[in-house]
């Protein structure tokens, strides 16, 4: 029960937040704050149960026959992450309250933020693979809405689109992987999947499943080669970057990898794929971060690099590496979010994030500077901070894994190099922004921000310090609970201490620290701190993305033009020919005979009806080109005859439907006719050329053949005795089991209810789209003018002139009165048809 509340509360909060007025910053923040703190409290209250090693479950059955249940599951690992997500959420809400300017429409922001939090909690607590994928896609969706928050900015729109494309494509791969995994195991329940590790690893489908799941996880966590969307997602407001793109959403990918670690890891494929992705991302991110000019850009690439570190650790196939990975996930979230918030503060107070312009801010903003310096030191891996601890574990694991797999020197070397760059960019970040002479030409005069903005950052930094100094007391038990829940009794012994002695990892850290500082000093010396990224700035991922998109669209267009035609007549010709071809096939198989069923005697009145109908149809065809209104009327006549046929054969609802469709079609056609140009005076010479006559003859032959062919086919089909037993089945069951007397309606609503549900959904979506389109509807200028027939009336003053005339004057007054009265009557009839259902 508590579990469902944890996931449900943010969504409810999101709906409430959406309904508040546009500038209620305080109300929104209070609401969001209450929701996030409540979630935190609920999660914390479940700790005692989880710490004992027990798994808290909440199961809500939905369609048990199909195995669809809503299954929430919290073990130690999920608890840790849920705590992280809700805690970060609370801090970000506090931060956002002061960051968002009064002109920003806050309801949208907080609503999507809370929805995102709910979706993230859903991923973390999900006990069913398919459910996890649903929440996964929800996070992609809410992330899209949040990145495009300032949608008037083109970079925000582009960034959002890119992020959405990449993560949703990954989500699709993940769905396929989850489906295959469920097929292998026989169930989508996470418990059963986690218990079936060996079976999955030896299954022939292992590699495809691995690749698909990895695609999903790596796109979400911005690993190479899918890392390019994260720097462009920095167009989002800073609270969004602090929450989504450092602490929560990008961690979903590595969360999934750690969650499925007992199932998928341990093989060579896992090692090589995951480690190479992680290592390349680690180096690439660190390298690029050293040369970014935007503060958020540095942090974005740094996030990519640290996620690469986590991925590399996860790929190493040892339990201790898994421990290190999870530990680093937590640490990274704390210091990175804090750094993003500090960046946001600098941006808010000075108006710019450009490292070239910023300088010497520590004089004006001492508290912010201190917080940022400590957080950056954690990022670099300075001792006594939490980053140092997890980096140490990383170095140690890289040595162990390297020696096991034959990469004895490569892996540690990669790790150290990445450490060097990481120190370099951290030092650069701090030095450029906070040190040096105070800057003169900033857009705004910097000053210390309001307390509300700095408190979340400071709290996170305090946590970094606390964990760094006293790890085994603070985070030790939590880490142990979560690791025990993944690894079970195989948890290896490790020690979370600040000082392990003069070990190789310690020397590696030392090398990294000194090397990084040296690198930065070198760059400063050579005046190369602000150059574009060497070698890599030529490869513009965004441009590549756009080029690929455009190529796909153009290719599709060319294919369509090659295979098809733009002219309506040619399209219709092709469709009819295809239908004719398909309809001929049955006649090739069986010969055309009449079949055995007896024919009913012909009814002269019915035949008369259809002679009229046929005459209307032929007349419509003859008049269609030049006398459109007449053709339309005759088309209506043919439709009317069809409707009468339905009524003749005792199918009143079909007749009703037919007439409704007929009326709507005619009205739409008339509206179309209104905007078509008037009849052209046609040139009789053109009409009689041989080519024109040949074409008309060809069309006539095709039309007549198709008509006769379809008629013959229907006749042949109708005169054969019915083979299926479906009719008997429906007739028998309809009254007792479904309770309705009208079999057709019962089929629609009961036996084939899902079809009807799908159709209603489609109609609902279309109605929503129509509403959205019409809200900002501006008709085309050429159609606003008064139509020709009304011009005389305008001259006579028959249209309403003054805006407060309730009714038109002149001859339109009476129709207006009558039709305004008719509208409620029509609606009553509508409800009368809608409500009772199958009678």
């Amino acid at each position, binding site marked *: 029960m508590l579990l469902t509340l944890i996931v449900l509360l943010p969504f409810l909060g999101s709906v409430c937040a959406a309904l508040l007025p546009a500038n209620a910053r305080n109300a929104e923040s209070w609401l969001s704050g209450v929701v996030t703190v409540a979630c935190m409290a609920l999660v914390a209250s479940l700790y005692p149960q989880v710490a004992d090693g027990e798994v808290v479950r909440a199961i809500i059955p939905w369609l048990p026959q199909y195995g669809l249940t809503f299954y929430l599951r919290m073990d130690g690992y999920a608890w840790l992450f849920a705590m992280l997500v809700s805690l970060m959420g609370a801090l970000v809400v506090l931060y956002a309250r002061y960051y968002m300017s009064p002109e920003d429409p806050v309801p949208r922001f907080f609503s999507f933020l809370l929805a995102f939090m709910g979706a993230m909690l859903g991923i973390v607590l999900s006990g069913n693979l398919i459910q996890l994928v649903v929440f996964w896609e929800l996070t992609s969706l809410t992330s899209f809405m949040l990145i495009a928050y300032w949608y008037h900015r083109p970079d925000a729109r582009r960034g959002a689109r890119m992020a959405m494309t990449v993560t949703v494509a990954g989500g699709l791969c993940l769905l396929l992987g989850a489906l295959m995994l469920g097929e292998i195991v026989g169930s989508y329940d996470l418990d059963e999947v986690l218990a079936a590790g060996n079976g999955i690893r030896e299954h022939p489908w292992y590699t495809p499943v691995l690749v698909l799941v990895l695609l999903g996880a790596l796109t979400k966590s911005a690993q190479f080669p899918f890392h390019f969307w994260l720097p462009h997602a920095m167009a989002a407001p800073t609270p969004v970057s602090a929450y989504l793109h450092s602490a929560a959403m990008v961690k979903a990918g590595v969360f999934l990898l750690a969650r499925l670690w007992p199932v998928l890891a341990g093989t060579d494929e896992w090692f090589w794929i995951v480690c190479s992705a992680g290592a390349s991302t680690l180096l690439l991110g660190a390298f690029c971060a050293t040369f970014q000019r935007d503060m958020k850009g540095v942090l974005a690439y740094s996030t990519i690099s640290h996620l690469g570190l986590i991925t590399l650790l996860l790929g190493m196939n040892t339990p201790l590496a898994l421990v290190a990975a999870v530990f680093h996930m937590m640490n990274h979230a704390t210091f990175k979010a804090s750094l993003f918030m500090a960046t946001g503060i600098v941006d808010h107070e000075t108006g710019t994030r450009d490292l070239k312009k910023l300088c010497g801010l520590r004089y004006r903003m001492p508290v912010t500077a201190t917080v940022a310096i400590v957080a950056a030191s954690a990022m670099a891996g300075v001792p006594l901070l939490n980053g140092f601890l997890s980096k140490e574990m990383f170095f140690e694991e890289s040595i162990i894994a390297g020696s096991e797999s034959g990469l004895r020197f490569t892996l540690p070397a990669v790790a150290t190099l990445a450490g060097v760059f990481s120190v370099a960019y951290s030092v650069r970040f701090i030095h450029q922004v906070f040190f040096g002479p105070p800057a003169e030409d900033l857009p705004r005069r910097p000053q210390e921000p309001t307390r509300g903005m700095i408190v979340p950052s400071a709290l996170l930094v305090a946590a970094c310090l606390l964990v760094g100094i006293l790890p085994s007391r603070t985070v030790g038990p939590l880490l142990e609970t979560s690791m025990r829940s993944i690894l079970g009794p195989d948890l290896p012994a490790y020690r979370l201490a600040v000082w392990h002695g003069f070990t190789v990892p310690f020397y590696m850290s030392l090398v990294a620290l000194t090397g990084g500082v040296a690198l930065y000093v070198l760059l400063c010396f050579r005046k190369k701190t602000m150059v574009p990224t060497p070698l890599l700035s030529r490869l513009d991922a965004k441009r590549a993305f756009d080029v690929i998109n455009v190529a796909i669209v153009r290719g599709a267009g060319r294919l369509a033009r090659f295979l098809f035609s733009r002219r309506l007549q040619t399209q219709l010709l092709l469709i009819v020919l295809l239908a004719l071809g398909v309809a001929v096939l049955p006649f090739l198989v069986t010969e055309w005979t009449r079949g055995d069923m007896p024919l009913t005697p012909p009814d002269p009145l019915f035949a008369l009806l259809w002679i009229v109908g046929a005459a209307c149809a032929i007349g419509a065809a003859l008049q269609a080109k030049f006398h459109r209104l007449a053709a339309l009327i005759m088309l209506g006549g043919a439709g009317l005859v069809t409707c009468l046929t339905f009524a003749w054969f005792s199918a009143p609802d079909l007749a009703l439907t037919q007439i409704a469709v007929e009326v709507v079609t005619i009205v739409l056609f008339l509206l179309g006719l209104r905007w078509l140009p008037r009849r052209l005076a046609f040139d009789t010479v053109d009409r009689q050329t041989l080519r024109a006559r040949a074409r008309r003859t060809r069309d006539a032959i095709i039309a007549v053949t198709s008509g006769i062919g379809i008629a013959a086919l229907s006749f042949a089909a109708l005169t054969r005795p019915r083979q299926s037993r479906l009719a008997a089945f429906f007739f028998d069951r309809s009254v007792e089991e479904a309770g309705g007397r009208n079999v057709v309606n019962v089929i629609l609503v009961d036996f084939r209810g899902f079809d009807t549900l799908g159709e209603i959904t489609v109609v609902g979506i279309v109605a929503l789209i129509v509403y959205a389109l019409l809200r900002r509807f501006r008709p085309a200028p050429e159609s606003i003018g008064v139509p020709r027939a009304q011009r005389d009336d305008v001259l*006579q*003053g*028959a249209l*309403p002139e003054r*805006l*407060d*005339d*309730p*009714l038109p*004057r*002149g*001859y339109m*007054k*009476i129709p207006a*009165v*009558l039709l*305004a*009265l008719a*509208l*409620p*009557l029509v*609606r*009553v*009839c509508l*409800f*009368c048809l809608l409500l*009772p259902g199958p009678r």
Partner: protein
Amino acid sequence: MRAPTTRRLPPMLVLGLTGMWLLLNQTLAPGQILLGFVLAVGLSWAASTLRPLQPRPRNLHVAVGLVFVVLRDIVRSNIAVARIVLGLVRDRDVRSGFLEIPLDMRDPHGLAALAAIVTATPGTVWVDLSPDGSRLTLHVLDLQDEAAWIRLIKERYERPLMRIFES
């Protein structure tokens, strides 16, 4: 047309819609009465922006009399037009033409009722209403005596309608 800012709930429309609901469902069950009433209130409220002017009918006994008069006129004019179409009127020359009638009634609902009556009787068709509402143009199939027609329309239809809608 700017919508009026206040929305009113016309009682007659609500009653009428409830009655229509009951009639359509062919029932008098109390549950249906309640449902119909709720529906009628909702729909009338929703439609009230389109109907800024509400009719105020009075003297409903006049309306009952008018209904009977109209029914009788419908039957008679049907037979008259049928005779004209079948060519059974030989003793005079059937000419059709336009007729202009000066109107005293200005209430739009009364005019709407008049239009319904005129259209329901074959032999007369409503053509035009002048912008200030003072002149009505009809087309009559069998126009023998203009003044007689004008008298007929005004006495038999316009006067009772004015008593119903405008007094």
